[in-house]
């Protein structure tokens, strides 16, 4: 077995209570869905249906001729009730609500066949595009229909990852159960066919020994595939860190992996690509982990896109507590306040936290049998086997920075958060801040997590960046001179806003 690789900085969240079990429950086909026409990577599609029109599951209802985007499908059979603009993830988005009949059947994609190797790469591209999977992950899967900012032939590397570096992760063991591990490899082959110039890397957590061994066995004959066991240290799952650890290449901070010719996909995106091309299944449902201490029984669900969150979590939350639901990551994830909003293509984990406003007696002296901390000052740190819990309490008052340097030690991009924040707080916004690489921050939020003085470092660094930009500092100035040929710069519109 190869040695696991990692980057400097970062922090491993070990053994948090409420990890999802390796069971998959199908949520019944909902009777009403709302489908946002902008999901995942790409621009919002034009609405192709009107209120009152009948639609089939798998029928394309949103599609844009211009701009980088991928089609959006109806996920159930039924009738369009309403098309309206709703505030979705802090932006306006067109939503189609559909009233369904509960029938799970769906329309297959044209052209998909079992023996996919007989398909020309143009056909594969088309099927992938029509299935909607090309919108997955941060920069999408490139096809000639402009589903990503680069073209397939410009992709120099394809990184498939399932490292699971967040406190709560969708389970790789579940996703790759049984035949799926073979599907994953077929899926990679399919993607390789459309991206012929790409070197392929498969990055998995160095702690999932069984999967690694199995994959090593299955792929030992493929010299085009490199298996990378990575230490599951947060934020290893970020594109920035994957590029740095695997490709050993500088990342154009503020731009995307696609700009340096890297396509980065998670396990599920590859599995869904396989299902699209071989089984003809459009992207109308996906597996989501329901995890965290607020759930009675954390597990995985398979839900249709557009299912209201309420239906997904109902009856699964522990009684008698106020829960906070967070999407995908506890450090940077969006808080899901409105449970009427739908599940979309980007959902991978829904984490339920307990809101904890209780003022604990002598909290600073507690032995911490279940407390997680970067420092080694709690009992729970004695062994990685001890389960830790987490809640939304701040665990302390905000205090001035004592330069303990925890934030610098964990920063994955090697900048000094406390120093930057001191500049920002004093309103010294000039060249110095840029020289200290303020624009390299990837907003992973780790510095804010570890700070014993409870300073919201990540937020203040972001504020500093914004103020600098308002003053007319150009962040491109910090990046572009260091890179020769970034691709797709014109199309790139900045990181996905959350």
């Amino acid at each position, binding site marked *: 077995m190869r040695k696991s690789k990692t980057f400097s900085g970062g922090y491993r969240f070990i053994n948090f209570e409420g990890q999802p079990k390796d069971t998959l429950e199908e949520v019944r086909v909902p009777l009403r869905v709302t489908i946002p026409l902008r999901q995942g990577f790409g621009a919002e599609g034009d609405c192709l249906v009107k209120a009152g029109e009948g639609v089939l599951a798998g029928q394309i209802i949103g599609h844009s001729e211009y701009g980088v985007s991928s089609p959006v499908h109806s996920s159930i059979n039924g009738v369009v009730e309403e098309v309206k603009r709703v505030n979705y993830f802090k932006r306006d988005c067109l939503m189609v609500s559909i009233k369904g009949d509960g029938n799970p059947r769906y329309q297959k994609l044209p052209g998909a066949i079992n023996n996919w190797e007989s398909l020309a790469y143009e056909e594969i591209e088309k099927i992938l595009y029509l299935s909607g999977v090309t919108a997955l992950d941060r920069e999408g899967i490139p096809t000639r229909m402009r589903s990503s900012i680069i073209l397939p032939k410009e992709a120099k590397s394809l990184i498939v990852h399932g490292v699971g570096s967040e*406190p709560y992760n969708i389970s790789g063991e579940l996703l790759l159960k049984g035949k799926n591990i073979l599907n994953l490899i077929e899926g990679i082959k399919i993607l390789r066919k459309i991206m012929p110039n790409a070197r392929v890397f498969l990055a998995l957590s160095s702690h999932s020994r069984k999967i690694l061994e199995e994959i090593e066995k299955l792929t030992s004959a493929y010299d085009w595939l490199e298996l990378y066991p990575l230490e599951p240290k947060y934020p290893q799952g970020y594109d920035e860190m994957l590029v740095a650890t695997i490709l050993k290449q500088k990342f154009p901070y503020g731009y995307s992996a696609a700009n340096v010719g890297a396509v980065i996909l998670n396990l599920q995106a590859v599995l869904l690509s396989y299902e699209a091309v071989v089984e003809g299944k459009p992207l109308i449902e996906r597996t989501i982990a329901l995890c965290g201490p607020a759930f009675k029984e954390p597990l995985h669900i398979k839900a249709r896109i557009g299912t209201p969150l309420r239906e997904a979590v109902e009856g699964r939350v522990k009684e008698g507590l106020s829960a*906070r639901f*967070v999407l995908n990551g*506890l*450090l*940077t994830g969006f808080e899901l306040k409105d449970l009427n909003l739908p599940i979309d293509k980007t959902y991978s984990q829904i*984490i339920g*936290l307990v809101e904890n*406003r*209780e*003022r*604990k*007696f*002598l*909290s*600073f*002296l507690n032995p*911490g049998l279940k407390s*997680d*901390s*970067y*420092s*080694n*000052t*709690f009992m729970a740190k004695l062994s990685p086997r001890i389960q830790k819990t*987490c809640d*939304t*309490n*701040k*665990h*302390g*008052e905000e*205090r*001035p920075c*004592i*330069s*303990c*340097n*925890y934030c*610098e030690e964990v920063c994955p991009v090697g900048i*000094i958060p*406390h*120093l930057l924040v001191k500049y920002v707080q004093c309103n010294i916004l000039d060249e110095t801040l*840029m*020289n*200290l*690489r303020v624009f390299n921050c990837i907003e992973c*939020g780790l510095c*804010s*997590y*570890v*700070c*014993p003085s*409870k300073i*919201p470092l*990540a937020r203040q660094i972001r504020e500093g960046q914004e103020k600098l930009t308002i003053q007319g500092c150009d962040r491109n*100035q*910090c990046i572009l*001179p*260091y890179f020769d040929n970034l691709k797709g710069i014109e199309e790139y519109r900045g990181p996905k806003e959350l």
Partner: protein
Amino acid sequence: MKFLRQRLDNLRNLSQKNKLLAFLKPVINAADEIYFGTDKVTTLPHILDSMDIKRYMSLVIVALIPVALGAVYLWGLRVLAVIAVSYIFGGLVETIFAIARKKEIHEGFLVTGLLFPLILPPNVPLWMAALGVMFGVVFGKEVFGGTGRNIFNPAIVGRIFLSVAFPSAMTTSWLMPFNQGTGGFLKFSADAVSQATPLTAFRSERLIADFGNLFLGGSPGCIGETFRLGILIGGIFLIFAKISNWRLPLSALLSVVICAGIGNFFAPDKFAPALFQIFSGGLLLGAFFMLTDPVTGPFTRAGKWICGVLFGFLVVLIRGLSGYMEGVMFSLLLINVFSPLIDRLVLGVKYPKIKK
């Protein structure tokens, strides 16, 4: 617990209603925050580390407990009185400043209050301890804007002030420690026989003290600097807890070994041998508990190495060549002065100017 909660709530209500008592708010808040954790919840990130400054500071105190207990054994119960005086007067200054600034009382003072008495001679008059701690807190910390902004370690400022203002009391009369039976646990104070510290003894008679005595505290010196086993235990505990950084103490001690080794080789009558230097004077206490003070030390990694080496060099130099017996305090003060500069230089190298 409930009772305490009610009392605190009552007090707070009272201070809100009564104009005359309003100025006490920081005190009430501080008490409240010490007894009860916060009720604030996170925004982004949604979870935060369980560690806070109160725990940070209280663990430094925990690490000092072996030293403090050792000190009581060696010097008698009077040590407790010195500690109490330091806490009371230092706390008073801290509170007055918090009230005047209408800010919270910060926890950093808890460490200063205990560290300061440990670097005083055991027979220090109580009024002198009070004066020193007040001077240290005011001029070492508050004039810079409180914890987190100070350039100097308040304990060191207080101690240096005393050395300069009352040189004879600080440097000439040393007590012989208790070292039998229950030691100082049942006695108030050690006998006032004048003794030479191991460093002085070396200076005047080329005498190398017994290492067992140096290690366990059987030699004269400041209250908290002689029980070196306790210092090592506490210091290493802090390093394992990730509260203090290993780079500074390690580089400092290595540097002392090397510099003293070289000095001793060329001028054995001026420079004491390396190992003796390590185990004498306030070096260990300084290296593990004061050099590592994050606020006043360097924060860059390279800066830590540089400052550690510089510190060791200065200590050996002052001990060997100056008129002072002990160089730890002055070296610490100098390191405090230089660390921002060193950090700045390191940053300049680490973050070169952006290409245009």
